[in-house]
């Protein structure tokens, strides 16, 4: 029982990380329909930005983190501006965009591997490393912060999308780009903003993991693909769905190993994912999926 509670706690923390990534990726996918695997590159970059900020530029942790998030948001925006929008100008197919995105992901992560070596680059997180013991469960302040940030990020996103003009523009484009264009919304600008926000959501996840176990170059690939699983399970186009999907995935992975050997962790998640596709392809909250989209 104690083990189960510990696993639930870990699952909540991991789920929060997945949720942040999923919120960002889902926002981008829902609005632009780009299968943005390079989101993983932004995730990895954010971690290293924070590391460089603290360890090489000797900035205080909080400053390094905020700067890293901003830098990651800029990176995401630049990826859209310089890669996807340029390809679209040349009439590229969606598959071509995906391939370019994949190329960028591989290039970025391997570049990071050469520059920083594949070993984890640890950061000093000071007081956040202090452990907190709640009953049988053992977590650190960092873990608590992770969950808080995920919830905060989710709420901030929801409020932004509902209340602000730009948020509404994003929602309009998400639901129908043609209609949005007709009412005068600048699609390119909305895409850039979406990428900036989506990247700004993934960045804290990358940074938090780096603060916990060190920055690693190839973690982003795993996270972005799990984020897409979370978004599909939660329902494409649904923000609460992405949040729920991420949390669910994190809990599933960890609770799954309560009874099953831990090496089978990822197999469990994907097994459940496949089950979802068979039984409920629209996920928790997605629109009803039709085999033809007219």
């Amino acid at each position, binding site marked *: 029982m104690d083990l189960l509670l510990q696993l639930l706690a870990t699952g909540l923390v991991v789920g929060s990380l997945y949720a942040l990534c999923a919120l960002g990726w889902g926002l981008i996918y829902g609005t632009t329909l780009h299968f943005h695997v390079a989101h993983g590159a932004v995730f990895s970059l954010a971690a290293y930005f924070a590391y460089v900020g603290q360890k090489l530029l000797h900035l205080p942790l909080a400053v390094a983190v905020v700067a890293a998030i901003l830098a990651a948001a800029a990176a995401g925006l630049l990826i859209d501006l310089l890669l996807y929008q340029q390809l679209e100008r040349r009439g590229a197919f969606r598959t071509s965009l995906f391939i370019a995105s994949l190329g960028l992901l591989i290039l970025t992560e391997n570049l990071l591997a050469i520059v920083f070596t594949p070993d984890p680059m640890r950061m000093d997180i000071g007081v956040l490393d202090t452990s907190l013991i709640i009953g049988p469960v053992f977590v650190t302040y960092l873990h608590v912060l992770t969950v808080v940030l995920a919830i905060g990020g989710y709420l901030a996103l929801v409020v932004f999308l509902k209340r602000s003009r730009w948020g509404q523009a994003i929602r309009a484009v998400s639901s129908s780009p043609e209609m949005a264009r007709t009412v005068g919304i600048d699609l390119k600008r909305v895409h850039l903003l979406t990428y900036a926000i989506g990247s700004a959501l993934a960045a804290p996840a990358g940074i938090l993991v780096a603060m916990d176990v060190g920055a690693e170059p190839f973690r982003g690939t795993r996270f972005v693909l799990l984020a897409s699983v979370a978004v599909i399970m939660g329902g494409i186009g649904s923000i609460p769905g992405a949040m729920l999907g991420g949390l669910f995935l994190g809990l599933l992975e960890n609770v799954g190993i309560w009874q099953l050997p831990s090496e089978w962790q990822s197999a469990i998640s994907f097994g459940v994912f496949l089950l979802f596709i068979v039984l409920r392809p629209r996920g928790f909250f997605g629109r009803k999926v*039709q*085999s*033809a989209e*007219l």
Partner: protein
Amino acid sequence: MSDSAASAQPILSLQGVSKAFGGIHAVQDCTFDVTPRLITGLIGPNGAGKTTVFNLITGFLRADAGSVRFKGKEILGLAPHRVEAKGVVRTFQHLRLWGKMSVLENVLVGCRSPLGENVLTLFLRPGRVRAEEAAAHERGMQVLEFFGLADRAREVAEDLAYPEQKLLSMARMLATDADVLLLDEPTSGLDTDSLGRIVPVVRRLVERGKTVLLIEHNMELISQLSDEVVFLHQGRVLARGRPAEITRDPALTEIYFGV
């Protein structure tokens, strides 16, 4: 209901078909018959639900209620490729041609090639597959000739001018040998010259024994072309009858041109 073809059983019969999206009733209690070997026009103001009716008949959308009978058998709810197999085929407003394939290939996809499309027979019965392919080629060229596109057979479909692309989308449809042809705005975007090419073609389709249901905005054309007209408004069938009756009805004209 007009008595122009009283002897014929309706080939396509819609009863109480309904579809709602969110709170919007795109199609409500839609009921009308299509008489075989005639041209029936489906008209109504923008947003009346005409293309939605096509989507429902051909299985691209699931209806909430109602029934669609083709030659007496229920086809509502069947997947699009099954509906086509039964004998009902459609064109699209935005054409949806396979632009990177040749003109002939576009038509060939429509021809039935069961041996060539089945992987087992493809490898185990090469002789018969070859014969089937040759027959399909011949048939494809015949269809292209019907539409006056035979000399463009080897060209890439996206290189064709718009009017010819419209003809190609109909050629593809004819190649399927379906009995009921649903034409979604066959003349939209065409100038008067091109119109002159399309209209006789549609007539000849019917002379060949096909039944045509077409969505059309051009009132002139409707009067010229249709034998019967169904007027749709806000998803409901408001009137059915001969074109002359419908186009002269002041109440309908008012609705059509918008108030």
